[in-house]
């Protein structure tokens, strides 16, 4: 039945189009006797360009204001403010170029629409003009490249020695996060040691592993450099912390890393957002203003399978003192899984004495 309806609908549409087509054709034949090079449509098309320009740029202008309410809050990391600045600087430059070229592109069709009486200006080239518009973009590009390059080299420089190192492992379909425990050093890992319990493949023969702990949420200290040691266990994933402007792929067999410095605690960010009308809106799910439940998040940005869109983890930035408190309260994974360790032949009490 549905199919029948569909088919008759399509037939009907095609019939209507055929009719319109006939009418257009007949009208144009009737008009054709008047020996004009262009039809009256030429004028209509010519006018539509400037009209679209005004409406289009009006819409962009107005909507950009509305949309910006939903943009991410100001960067919560040191380097993020720099990349944000570069981003908006570049956007301003290209915005001007976009506007200016479209002003011409949408005005010329109106201004120079066909007139029998006029003839086009025969102008094959103009070397001065061409040199100008090769050199100007080249100079602008150079400026942008240099500023981008300086920021990029800073971001990708080796992590400071005092960084807090955290291991993040992507797997289908969640993240696992390991801290180095009291000794401040992450123990070794090996993909052959992975099993149902030891999902990160921690090598407990390495004494440094014994005090490592695995956290549910990611905690970070404010104002201290954080080094993410990133790996993947099965396919590619990508660590994306949008509020910190952090992104780095997680690659099986090839550890990667990214270091950055959080500059606002979660509480500070909530405080800051509470002044923003968009964040004061009541969230229907919780009945509270949105800013109250604001959280930093970790997402995956490299397609990794069916659960790609759900690889979320909450990130909490604390004052250093709070962070240390939290850090010291965590039990090591080994101490919580003594049975597992003895099943692989490691006696935890002995290891503790080492």
């Amino acid at each position, binding site marked *: 039945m*549905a199919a029948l309806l569909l088919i008759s609908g399509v037939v009907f549409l095609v019939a209507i189009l055929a009719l319109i*087509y006939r009418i*257009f054709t007949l009208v144009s034949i009737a008009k*054709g006797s008047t020996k004009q090079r262009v039809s009256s449509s030429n004028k*209509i*098309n010519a006018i539509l*360009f400037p009209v*679209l320009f005004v409406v289009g740029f009006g819409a962009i202008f107005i*909507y950009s204001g509305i*949309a910006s309410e939903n943009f*991410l809050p100001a960067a919560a990391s040191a380097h993020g403010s720099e*990349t*944000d600045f570069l*981003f908006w600087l570049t956007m301003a430059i290209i915005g001007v*170029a976009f506007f200016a070229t479209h002003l*011409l*592109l949408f005005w*010329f*069709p109106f201004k*120079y629409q066909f*007139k029998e009486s006029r*003839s*086009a200006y025969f*102008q*094959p080239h*103009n070397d001065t003009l061409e040199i100008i518009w*090769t050199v100007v*973009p080249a100079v602008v*590009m150079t400026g942008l490249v240099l500023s*981008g*390059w300086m920021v*990029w080299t800073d*971001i*990708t420089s080796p992590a400071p020695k005092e960084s807090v190192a955290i291991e993040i492992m992507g797997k*289908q379909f969640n993240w696992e996060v390991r801290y180095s425990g009291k000794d401040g050093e992450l123990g070794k890992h090996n*993909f052959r040691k992975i099993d149902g319990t030891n999902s990160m*493949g921690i090598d407990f023969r390495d004494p440094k592993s014994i005090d490592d702990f695995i956290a549910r949420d990611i905690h970070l200290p404010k104002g201290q450099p954080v080094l993410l040691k*990133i790996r993947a*266990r*099965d*396919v*590619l994933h990508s660590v*994306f912390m*949008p*509020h910190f402007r952090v*992104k780095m792929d997680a690659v*099986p*067999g*090839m550890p990667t890393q990214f270091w950055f410095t959080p500059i606002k605690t979660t509480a500070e960010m909530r405080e800051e957002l509470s002044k923003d009308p968009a964040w004061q809106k009541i969230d229907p799910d919780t009945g509270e203003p949105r800013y109250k*439940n604001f*959280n930093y998040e970790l*997402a*995956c*940005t*490299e397609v*990794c*399978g069916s659960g*790609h*869109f759900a690889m*979320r983890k909450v990130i909490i930035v604390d004052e250093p003192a709070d962070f240390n408190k939290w850090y010291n309260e965590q039990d090591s994974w080994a101490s919580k899984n003594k049975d597992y360790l003895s099943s692989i032949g490691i006696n935890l009490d002995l290891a503790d004495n080492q």
Partner: protein
Amino acid sequence: MSTVDIDIQSAADAHGHDDHHDHHEQGFFEKYVFSLDHKVIAKQFLITGILWAFIGGLLSAIFRVQLAFPDADLTFMKPLLGDWIDAQGKMDTEFYLAAVTMHGTIMVFFVLTAGLSGTFSNFLIPLQIGARDMASGFMNMLSYWFFFLAGVIMLISLFISTGPASGGWVIYPPLSALPQAMSGSGLGMTLWLTSMAFFIVSTLLGGINYITTVINLRTEGLSFSKLPLTIWAFFLTAVIGLLSFPVLLSAALLLIFDRSFGTSFYLSQIYIGGEALPNVGGSPLLFQHLFWFLGHPEVYIVLLPALGITSEIISTNARKPIFGYRAMIGSMIGIGFLSFIVWAHHMFVSGMNPFLGSVFMFLTLIIAVPSAVKTFNYLTTLWRGNLVFTPAMLFSIGLVSLFISGGVTGIVLGNSAIDIQLHDTYFVVAHFHLVMGSASFFGMMAGVYHWFPKMFGRMMNEKLGYVHFWFTFIGVYMVFFPMHYIGIAGFPRRYYSFTNFDAFSTFTDLQIVISVAAFITLAAQFIFAFNFFFSIFKGKLAPLNPWRSNTLEWTTPRLPGHGNWPGKIPTVYRWPYDYSKPGSKEDFIPQHIPFSQTPESNTDMENELGKLEEEEKKDLGKSSESH
């Protein structure tokens, strides 16, 4: 409109007798199926490309429904999608990825590579350079049928129970290498790789032919410095394809080895499906380098023909020479060359050495310069022109607009520091859909409207063309421009839904606006489809040179037969852009009109050339008498 330009016509007809044809009747199969005629092969590419465009478009409509209405009951799609919609009316998450992957693959390779280059390189190269056909008609036919075979295999993969390839059109391993990782990486991926292997063969056969033909078969007088920009564009495109597609083939081959023969080119230290795999020592980054070594040039393989086509159309319909002909060629060569050394800008945060990132940022931003030059040259061509808005002209102006709006964001993404945040977000989706998807699509449409009269001997309906253009132009902006905002807000691409994240739970209204705009834009394409197929049979008969254009194809009969020109192939005397030349009575002087016939518009140098022509003619006359 039916003013036939008598004098132009007679110039071609003057060489009365038919020295080429061996009039034998061809059977249906020889004529329309396994044809060796470049014009028929071009039409085969075009019609296949159009069909694929509708399939690719349908897929985007399907996933746009999901994105706009993540909570809706999609049971109504069950007749189409079967088990991909579960009992609760939810779309399968892997199917979402499969649809995205197939959409991308189909659009990039089948529509905008085969459909665009295949159609217009085939159709226009012989006609615009004055050749009877391609250098090798047989290879040309093979090229189409390999493409067809690739298409059949890809189509089959859409219907298998484990689903088609689903790891994104870039098929990054290990995801694409391991059937344990997702069901689409099983048989679907095998079919994808097989199909692409045939597709690459098709592209190479076509490319070799285009290059050989342009180099060897240009008619008398047609030097490279008099070639229409279309031909320059097709030529450079073919060169780029010839250099880059084999690399994709080797990337695919190594992937096939990893998948089927237990090698470890791309695999290392993987634990999946409850077991540690034996593979060690491979690198997923190797694949990415190989893939993007094709992948980035591919962007220009898709774009350059569109730029060539629109240069020609804009010049014709502005009744004005293309501004900076040499600069246009120079920038195309520049873009072509640079396109090979920017690939790693897709990999800034892939884990590759950051120093490499700096190098590729430099190289990437250089490519903006020739692109800017092209834009300014387009604008200057419109300036003080006498613009005739045919549908082809509208689509060409549309292309310039899209090329700008999509191109400028490339400057943002090419900056590695900024790309950290934007990589793999909707900002990228917005960028490449405007600059590569829409711009090339507009070039293709412009080409169809412009050369339809030569392809089918009939005119398409202008008014429907106008309606089609305005719907499409406004439509693509409504679809892709808002994606910038979503991207700036950090939304990652290839997400089935955004409701899991607080950060991405906004913009729900905008998602609906985008989807509705997409549905309307897609629906508007049926106006085109109707106009196209209906006009093939019912269109007004086309005049010989409907757009009063200079290039050689308009000197052929209304429907050129086998061999294109019934008589001698015209000789070329001038460049293709003598529009509105001061002194000339008409506002165009076709390429085959000798300078000796146009003293009123010649420059001094051209008058000299005219004299030389006369002398040569005399010499020729003597020598042919003595034969």
